[in-house]
């Protein structure tokens, strides 16, 4: 009879394998924390691919928390030096050719970023996948041999989000967002974002490539490929200022 109290004792040890399923919000939060860190700094190439032409844009980005971000265009020569600063809901655009900062209307966040399949909001991440949506765990699946959670995200009423619904597939082990489906308010699938090329970036296992494909024109797509990414870099709040917007290199 001694075996029962011993078994009970082992099971009640801290760290014993008591599997607790994380909530949908926790899964999204963990995946979001992983790609953001406290702050991050990256270099990437955006490729806009169409059947008859393509364009490539070089970008550098800096972000701290969800409210401060900066993006610098490094190529092509025509747009080099153009930069964007985001603080909460405000966005400024620095145009070196006219030596001037222009404040952009908030509505511009939903527009396409430089003709790509990403919106301005996708780039500066004004809307938060954590705060602007309600999340529901809707089962699981396997993507690229990785078991994933399926999470349905419905935007909150007051959130400035263009989508009616977003379905996100997040890797169960490493919390990687591997597939995202964007639906409009009528429930039609508009865009599909697929992540790939999983590798170590800034000391974290992350997808280095993201493909955004519009449903109505699958021969079009936009690829973002990270060249480098660093996390938790020390960035002062003053870094995200109009003064620095025209100085970043």
């Amino acid at each position: 009879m001694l075996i029962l109290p011993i078994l009970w004792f082992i099971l009640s040890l801290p760290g014993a394998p008591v599997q607790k399923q994380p909530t949908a919000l926790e899964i999204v939060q963990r995946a979001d924390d992983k790609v953001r860190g406290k702050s991050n700094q990256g270099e990437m190439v955006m490729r806009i691919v169409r059947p008859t032409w393509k364009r490539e844009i070089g970008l550098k980005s800096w972000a701290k928390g969800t409210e401060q971000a900066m993006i610098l265009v490094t190529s092509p020569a025509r747009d080099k030096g153009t930069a964007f600063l985001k603080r909460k809901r405000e966005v400024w655009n620095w145009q070196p050719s006219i030596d001037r900062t222009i404040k952009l209307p908030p509505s511009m966040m939903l527009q396409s970023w430089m003709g790509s399949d990403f919106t301005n909001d996708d780039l500066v991440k004004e809307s938060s996948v954590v705060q602007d949506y309600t999340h529901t765990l809707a089962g699981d699946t396997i993507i690229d041999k990785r078991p994933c959670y399926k999470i349905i995200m419905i935007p909150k009423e007051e959130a400035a989000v263009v989508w009616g619904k977003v379905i996100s597939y997040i890797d169960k082990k490493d919390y990687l967002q591997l597939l995202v489906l964007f639906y409009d308010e009528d429930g039609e699938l508009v865009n599909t974002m697929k992540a790939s090329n999983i590798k170590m970036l800034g000391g974290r296992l992350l997808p280095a490539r993201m493909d955004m494909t519009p449903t109505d024109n699958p021969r079009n797509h936009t690829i973002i490929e990270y060249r480098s990414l660093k996390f938790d870099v020390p960035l002062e709040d003053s870094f995200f200022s109009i003064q620095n917007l025209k100085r970043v290199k």
Partner: protein
Amino acid sequence: MRGWVTIWFFILWLSTCNALAQTDSISIASDTVTQNKPRNAILQNLQLKGYVKQLQTFILVRGLDSLLTDNLLHNRLNFNYSLDTTLNLVVEVRNRVFYGDLLRQVPIYPQLIDSGNDVWDLSAMPVKNRSLLVHTMLDRAYLEYTKKQLEVRLGRQRINWGLNLVWNPNDIFNAYSYFDFDYEERPGSDALRVRYFSGYAGGVEIAARLSTDPEKRTIAGLYKFNRKEYDIQLLGGVVGREAVIGLGWAGSIQDAGFKGEFTYSRPYTNPLDAKGQLLASVSGDYSFASSFYLHGSVLYNSLGEKNPSAFLFQAFRPGRLSVKELSPYKYNVFGQVSYTFHPLLVGGLSTIYFPEDQAFFLNPVLTYSAFPNLDLDAIGQLFMDSEQGEFKATTKVIYARVKWSF
């Protein structure tokens, strides 16, 4: 011309000093790595950008039978040289070659295009005859010192205080004509500008512009702050013989942009007899997810006229304006729509309406990105008058432009 040469020698001298400062072993070092280092350092610190544009202009004026053409080959070179982490030298050169009917038929053409100098004449016209005109100008030549939140610029520079996108009553140093679309950099001022930044969108600055023309001499201060998602600025100073105060803001109402600029000026020498001038411009813009863009703006000029005669002349007047000359009309209404038909093709239509004499200006624009750094533009400028309720174009101008950036 002399000033232009002086600046080039100055740049050459700075480059040489910096090269020598970076290595004191250039004459004794046999190691090629050591010898290459300063040269590489210079190149690393030097940035060059620019473009070449060809602008073909076709002009049809009512009453004249012939079609006039004007051609402009335009090159811009922007040099930025970092002497160290705090000191930058910026030199930008504008080279233009004019040819065509307009040059042949307008005797004062060379004088018309040779504007933008303040104290120093940093321009030259190496070729000047009735069939070909070559004009070279340094429209930026300044040293910039930056330390923490302080920024000091000395030399020919653009001091841009505007917040609106069409009319900028607050832009008291470098006001420009909306019609002069081909010069997006705008002329510079020979000036000293001291800025101290605070917060993320605020700060205080003082700028003084020197000029051989007393009417253009300007000294003014600007205070800028951000409150409740609005950039707000207050300015005050002296332009020529007038005292100037101004207020501007850039914010939003819901998701639409909302900006405004007010400037009031009054001669200070005889303030009781003299008449003040209020320039006020308010604008709003909204962008739909489809990339359809709407923009509207109004300009009120308290000294504006009902039916100014100088309008057409002013519209074509190249170079810089005084802020007081933004428009000769009292009321001006601007509207713009633009749409991205295709990621490489953007179309737009702007109009300015002058309600008092029922005149208006139409400005269709098509921009096509043929290659990553090659743009093709087709632009129209139509000046319409009404005669007994019927609109007729007094002048039609069509531009075709090719621009290659590097």
